[in-house]
C-alpha cells in the first residue's frame, strides 16, 4: 500500500513518477524567485500558489476552467492555474498578480504596472474579485499585440467573467493601458 507521504522517484532519464496520492518535488520560478517544494500530485497550481506560497492574489471561482479568475502567466502565456497540476508546472516560470508591480528587496512597491495604473484611472473594476485574472490576461495579450482594436480586446478578454461591471469599464481600462504603454515606449525611446 502506498502511504500518502510516499515520494516520487526520479529516474536517470529525467522521468518522474509519484505513487497514488504521493508527492513529488518540483522546482519552479515564481515572480522571479526560485522555489522548491514537495507537493501532492493532485494539487493544482492555483492551490499551490495560494496555500503553499501564500500568494492569495490568484483567485478561484469555478475551478474547472470557465471563469478565468485563476489566470496566471506560465512561460509568457496566460493559463488557467486551476487546470494545471503543480507537478505539471515543474521547471516553469510563473508570474502572478503579486509579480506585476515593481518592488524593492523588502517587497515594498516602487511602482505599479502600467496596466494596474490604467485600470485605476479607468475605474475598471468594482469588487475586483475578477481583477487578477483580467490583469494577467491583458498582460500577455498586450505583450503580443501592443496596439489592439476594440474588437480584439473584447475577444481576448472574453474568457474572463466579471459579475459586477458589465465589462465596458474593463475594456476602457485595457484601452487606457494601451495608451499608457505606448506613451511609456515613446518616452523610453526619447530617453535612449
Amino acid at each position: 500500500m502506498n502511504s500518502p507521504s510516499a515520494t516520487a522517484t526520479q529516474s536517470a532519464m529525467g522521468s518522474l513518477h509519484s505513487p497514488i496520492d504521493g508527492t513529488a518535488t518540483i522546482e519552479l520560478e515564481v515572480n522571479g524567485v526560485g522555489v522548491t517544494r514537495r507537493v501532492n500530485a493532485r494539487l493544482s497550481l492555483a492551490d499551490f500558489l495560494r496555500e503553499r506560497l501564500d500568494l492569495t492574489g490568484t483567485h478561484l471561482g469555478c475551478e474547472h476552467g470557465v471563469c478565468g479568475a485563476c489566470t496566471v502567466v506560465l512561460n509568457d502565456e496566460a493559463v488557467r492555474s486551476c487546470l494545471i497540476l503543480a507537478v505539471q508546472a515543474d521547471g516553469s516560470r510563473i508570474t502572478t498578480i503579486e509579480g506585476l508591480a515593481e518592488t524593492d528587496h523588502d517587497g515594498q512597491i516602487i511602482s505599479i504596472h502600467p496596466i494596474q495604473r490604467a485600470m485605476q484611472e479607468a475605474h475598471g473594476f468594482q469588487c475586483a474579485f475578477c481583477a487578477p485574472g483580467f490583469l494577467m490576461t491583458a498582460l500577455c495579450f498586450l505583450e503580443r499585440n501592443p496596439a489592439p482594436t476594440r474588437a480584439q480586446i473584447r475577444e481576448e478578454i472574453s474568457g474572463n467573467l466579471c459579475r459586477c461591471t458589465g465589462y465596458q469599464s474593463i475594456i476602457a481600462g485595457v484601452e487606457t493601458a494601451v495608451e499608457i504603454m505606448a506613451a511609456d515606449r515613446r518616452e523610453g525611446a526619447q530617453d535612449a
Partner: protein
Amino acid sequence: MPAFAYHRPASLDEALDLLSRFGEDAKILAGGQSLLPLMALRLSHPANLVDISRVPGLNEIVEDVEGGLAIGATVTHTRAEEAEAVHRLTPLVAAALPLVGHRAIRNRGTVVGSLAHADPAAELPAVALALGARFIAVKSGGQRRVAAADFFSGFLTTDLAPDELLLAVGFPPQKPRTGVSVKEISRRSGDFAIVGLAATVSLDEAGLIASSALSFFGAASTAVRVTEAEEALAGQSPGPEAFEEAARIVSQSLDPPEDANGTTAYRKHVAGVLTRNALADAIDQIGFAA
C-alpha cells in the same frame, strides 16, 4: 481532484510501456484542458495519469511532399493557430482553431487531445471528419493508421485502445479550387457550440461543384457529415438555389439531441441556416483565390 499516481515519461517508449502496464487504469494527460475539468467535477477518476507533455518529438508540425500536414500530439491550439503552414495547407483547421475555447485554454490544450477527447460539440473532430484526416496510433510493438470516418465511435469515445497513444493527426492536401468555412452558434464567445459545421466546397474546371463536405458538431453523439446534402450539391452551379436545397436536406436529416441550450427543432433549423451561410462563405473564398 481525486487521487492518482502521476507519471511523466521522458521518452515515447517509456510512455507506451506505462500505458501497456496500466491499460484501463491509465489516462494520457496532454494539455489537461478537458481531462482536468472532468476530474475536478469527479466525472473521471483515473488511477494513473501519464503526462506526455515532455516526450520529445511530439511537438511538431510537419509538411509532407504531397502538400499534406501532420500535427504532433503535444502541439497546442495556439501553436497551430500561429503556424503559417496550418493556414496555407489546412485553412479549415486554421478557421476552426480561434473558435476553440479561449486564449488561456488554447495555450495549454492540444489539437490531438481535442480529437482524442472526441467531444461531439468540439470543432476539431468535425474538421477532421470533413477533411478525411488520418490518425496515427502507436502502442508498444505496433503502429496503425485510422481514417477519421472510423475514428469517432460515440460520445467521448474513439477507436483508440487504452494502451494506444495518438502520435499525430495527418491532413491530406487540399484539392484545387476549394473554399472552406466554419460556422457556429454559441451562447458566449469561446463556449462550446450549440450547433455548428465545418464545410469545404471544391469546384471543377467548369465552375460547378465537384465535391463538398458538410460536417456538423453539436448535432449528434459524434461529429457527423450529412452525405445526402453533399451528394445533392455535386454537379450543381454554386448559388443560392443549390445552397438552399442543401440546407433543407440538412435540417431534415439531422436529429440533434435536446438540452438546456436548445431544442431539437432549434438545432435543426440553425444547422440549415449555418449550412447556407457556410457554403456562400466558402464559395466567396474561391472567387478571391481565382
